[in-house]
């Protein structure tokens, strides 16, 4: 079973518990939230590989233009560090090349946000 399938299975079990009625509103809310987490995580996992590949490709020209290698890893913390640092540098540089690169990077990040939401929207 894939991670997404396992998470969906756990979510299904939680849904059954919630439908059976929890003792109070707080506990029922906890179960329903856990169910929602499972659905969203499953959707995220299902889209992760495609989204990562797209991000590596979409950011490669900007990184190359600044003499940097393409994103080699797609762990969120490493990507966040690389792109945040690059944006710091571009904002500080202030020349036309930097401004152009910053505009392009913002366009890529906006599309990344849209793609991330589109992936989450597939949650059953």
């Amino acid at each position, binding site marked *: 079973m894939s991670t997404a399938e396992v998470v969906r299975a756990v979510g299904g079990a939680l849904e059954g518990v919630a439908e059976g009625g929890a003792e*109070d*509103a*707080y506990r*029922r*809310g*906890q179960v329903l*939230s*856990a169910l*929602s*987490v499972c659905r*969203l995580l499953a959707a*995220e996992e299902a889209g992760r590989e495609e989204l990562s590949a797209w991000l590596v490709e979409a950011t490669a020209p900007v990184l190359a233009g600044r003499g940097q290698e393409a994103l080699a890893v797609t762990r*969120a*913390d490493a990507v*966040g*560090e690389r*792109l*945040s640092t*690059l*944006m*710091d540098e571009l*904002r500080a540089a202030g020349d036309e090349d930097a401004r152009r690169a910053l505009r392009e*990077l*913002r*366009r890529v*990040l*906006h599309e990344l*946000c*849209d793609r*991330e*939401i589109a992936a*989450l*929207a597939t*949650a059953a």
Partner: protein
Amino acid sequence: MAAEETLAGEREAAALAALAGAGVLAPGEEAAGLTQLEGGWSRQAFVLATAAPDGATREFVVRVKPPGALLDTDLRQEFEICRLLAEHGIAAPVAHAYVADANAFGGPFFVMDRAPGWAPNVWRRRDRVELEANWEAGGSLAEDLLDSLVRIHAIPADAAAPILPARDFEAAVSHWEEVQNSMRLIRDPVVEDAYAWLRERTPDPVEPSLVHGDYRIGNCLSEDGKITAILDWELSYLGDPRYDLGYISLEYEAGRFTQPGSPLLGAVAGRDWFLAEYEARSGRPVDLEVVRTYAVLAALMLYAILTTGIRMYVDGRSTDVRMVWTRFALASLRQELAALMRY
């Protein structure tokens, strides 16, 4: 189970003692049950039912700041704000007693009347449908939401100043940026860029007023198409009232998550109507660019608070699974930030 029953009994007794101390209880009035409410991200809330010897029953809400609360804001401030609002005729819960001493709730609490009504959840489709129907039918909730906001902002600043922290634009930006940086698990380029964007858009200063800080229909109780109480004042401060306009204009606050929410502002009112009427009734000019600036600040505030919740769960300071769920809400806020900054 026995331990839970003992704790519940001790909590009932603590709340009842607070009410008795405030002179609220009728002779012989006793506790008839205590249940925890579902909502509340930074506060816990319980309903205390009481019964008098003549058979009369009523309900109170016990609002608790639990240990390691999501927002480290002052509960006494909320209690005092509720009393100030009552003095100015604004629909707010009638607050009776504040208890700071060690007690069975595990943190300071205050007891207030349970106001009648329902708090809509704009992220729930059926609630949005109901709110939109209200707007189509004349917008009684929009009218109340607007009227209350105008009157909140009209409370003299010197009346709120002894209770609330003052925070101008720069201080607000710095405050939430510090929260974000101290709580984050990873760096987020969109969020960091948004703070840089804000620092280039400082609005012209205006006279400070009471800012709710979390002003939305979900923080109001309503009944029969009327708002009966405005709740959740833990983010209130003395500052630029246009913050509340930016906050309520977020699409996130109209129910947007992975799908679009309501086209209405806050899922309640026509956007143009609300902002134009606010300007006309308050006498305060509404600059849409300033509203956009405050919308970005509001989104960053939400982002910082949700990040704090995630941090608390990861560090083992909370077992509330909603803190885990908020990880996905960050994606929606990040998308709205990118749109607001016109990336």
